[in-house]
Every structure is written in C-alpha cells, then in structure tokens.
C-alpha cells in the first residue's frame, strides 16, 4: 500500500468491515515481508480479529513475594 492508495482510502466516506479487513491484511503482509514483525506474533496477538473469534491463550507466571528475602522470585 503506497501513499496514494492510503490517501484514496482516507477519502472514502465509508469503509465496510470487509474492506477494512482487506486493507489490514495487506498492511500486515507488507510489514511481515519487510521483517518488521513475525507472522507468529501477529497470529498470537490478533487472531481474534482475523479469525472472528475471541480465543485467548497465554502463560501462567508464578511469582513468590517474600520481602524478608528482599526480592521477588519468579519460580516458574
């Protein structure tokens, strides 16, 4: 997407969700191609938008708080 195409989009009076999805996908393809971000990162962070779901995944982090030892220890 070059500047001219972007200006055309910005001149539109209305953008359908489908068009928006296409433009975002085009933008993402470009930034992945340019190596600015990995496909895996995009999938993980934005999958609910592109797949139309609200799948949420993540890690559990355990932190031990014990001021007597004056530090927080991540145990897992």
């Amino acid at each position: 997407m070059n500047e001219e195409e972007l200006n055309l989009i910005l001149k539109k009076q209305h953008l359908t969700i489908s068009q928006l999805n296409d433009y975002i996908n085009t933008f993402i393809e470009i930034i992945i191609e340019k190596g600015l971000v990995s496909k895996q990162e995009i999938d993980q962070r934005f999958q609910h938008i592109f797949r139309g779901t609200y799948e949420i995944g993540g890690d559990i982090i355990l932190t031990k708080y014990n001021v007597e030892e004056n530090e927080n220890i991540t145990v897992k």
Partner: protein
Amino acid sequence: MRILQLNKSLKFLDDSNNEITLKENIDYIVPEIFLIKINSFGFSKHIVKDDEFKYEERKYKGQDLKRKSVIVFRNGGIGDLMFFFPAVAELKRKYKNSKVVVCCSNKYSDLFLGNDDFDKVIHLPLELEELLKYDYYIQLQGIIEDNKDAETRNAYDLHNERFYVQPDEDNMIPKLFPQKEEINKVEKYIEKDKKNIVIAYAASVPIRSVNPDLYINLIQSLNKQYKDKFNFIIVCTPSQENEAKKILNICDNLTTKIFTGREHKLRELIALVSLSNCVISPDSGLIHIGAAFKKPLIGIYGPFSSMLRMKYYRNAIGLDSKTNCIMGRGEMNCCFQHGEGSCKIARKRAEIYSPCMTLYNIEELIFSLKNLKIIEDEIQ
C-alpha cells in the same frame, strides 16, 4: 468529588452494594458517580446544590500533624481500606499527638476495631460539616479506579504517597486484631491435626473470579493424594452461598466446610483467617486479611498483575496469566478492569468468567502449595 444537597431524602445502593442514605437539606461530599445514579433514579429535580468540592487549603500535603487532626475518606471494599493501614500507622509513629479519623462504608467499619492507629470511625456518606471539624482531609476516592499510575504501581505505594509517608518494609503490612470471643465463635471450623486452607469462593465481581471447578478439582485431588491431611473452608457471601454449597455435594463434606457471610460477620472471618494455615483467593479482601497475619498466600490474578497488590506480602505466591487478550496493555497485557461486573470478552463468548482467569489449573496451585510448604514432602 461534589458537594451535594437534596431537598428530599434518598436511600440507594452504591457500586459496592453499600446502602447510602442522603438526608434532606444536608451538604454531603459525594463521588461524581452518585450524581449519575441520582439522575438515573429520576431524582435530579430534588438536587438543590451541586458544587465542586474544593477546600484545597484543607487538603493534606504532608504538613506537620502535631496536635492536628486529619479525616481520611474512602468508599471501597476491604482491600481498598486495608491499603492505607500502613500509611496511617506510619503517620501516627511520626506524629504521636495527631488524630486520624476514617470515614468509610458501614459494612466494613469493623476492620478498624482494636486498631489504635485510628481514633474514630464514621460512616459514609460524609457530611461537609463533619469534614470541616478536622484540620486536614485525605481523599482516596478513585486512587485506584481512576488513576493511570495504579496500572504500574503497587496499591500500598500509591496510598503511602497520598499520606506523604514511606514506612520501611517491615511496616508495609496491614495489621488486624481479632478478639477472643470472635476466635471462640469460629474455632469449630478449624481442625488442629490438619492443614486448614481457607479459600475465597469468588471475588466481589465475576471479572476477577476463578471458576469454582478449579477449587473442586484441587480439593478432590488433595483428598485423594493426601488423605485426612487437609481441611478446606470455603468463604462465600450470602448471595454466593447456594452455588458454593454445591461444592459440598461433589467434595467430601468431612474435609470441606462452607463459611458464609450470612452466618458470620467480617470480624469472624478475620478470626478464621488468623487460625488458618493458608489462604487461596482471587483478588479479594481475603488475600489482604491473610497478609495481615502473614499467612502463606496464593493470589490468583488476571485483569491486573498480583504485583500491584501483593508486592509487600510475606510468604506469598501470585499467579498471573499473561495472555494475548485484545483488551490488554502494559508489560503483563492486562485490561486493569476490576470494578466492572464481568469481562467484555467473556460476555462476547457467552461465558461468566474472564478468559484470563480460566487458564489456571490445579498443577499451579499444587506447585504453589508445595513451595509454601503447605504440602510437605513427609506427608506425600
């Protein structure tokens, strides 16, 4: 905050389910949310005064409190009130002749019983005339709810700053003082030859609660693996009682008891925790009560990080789910929603519990219990 006067009395429940009575022809200091509520009741025609609360000259800004008085006001839950206990204790250490008065919801005023740091406790709503009796005021409304800093800084640090004190780390834990008669009332829940684990059935709102199935699985697993070694006490509010009792039908009711707010007062809950060996809870008052007695704690967090609440607690483990949630931001990708009823994403998924709170399983709880030495090698 606003100064509000009505020409007709009004009684309603605030967002924390506290009953608020605004009497006619009296000036009250109220949070702005009250105005929205009053308007929603169609009561706006009875508002005869709605002024901005200023009195900047009486706002406490670290002045010398020798022989001076200060009123602290906060409309919040158990944790919200306990967050300023260390700051008030430090203020009293610094200014021995000062007077500290707290104004809070009637529902939680028993938290201050036996605590000499507080000279007087009065109930919300706060009358302007009452506030003007004191040299200074410290207003804590919104210190967590409407404060961007609360997304990165521990709640105790925020409160200490508002009081212009910095207690040392040994004094960063709130103190509670259960009375003998309260202990006598709850001793029946405790089994001396077992490890007594107090579990909060839920936080005050679904967004911060875990699915109780997690507790059921934990109780069943520990009962199977370590027979007769544990006694579980599930703490619930009157409205949660029917649901909580279902746990008894599934788990062995010889090892599991329900401690309900319908039968017991806040003071008795404090006494119960003081007698226990461990507390497991999502972000709720129970975590902070457990911390006051330096009990081994397991805090289960999602919408915001355990560090924001538990950083100064001893022998405590915070469980945090770091997710890819669209609502998240910051280092832990949290949404920082805590006052709202339920998670927006959960609603879209037609579920009750926040997705970030459903990622937990019993392995993490058992790992934590072992780390805290509640599960000990010799009883395996």
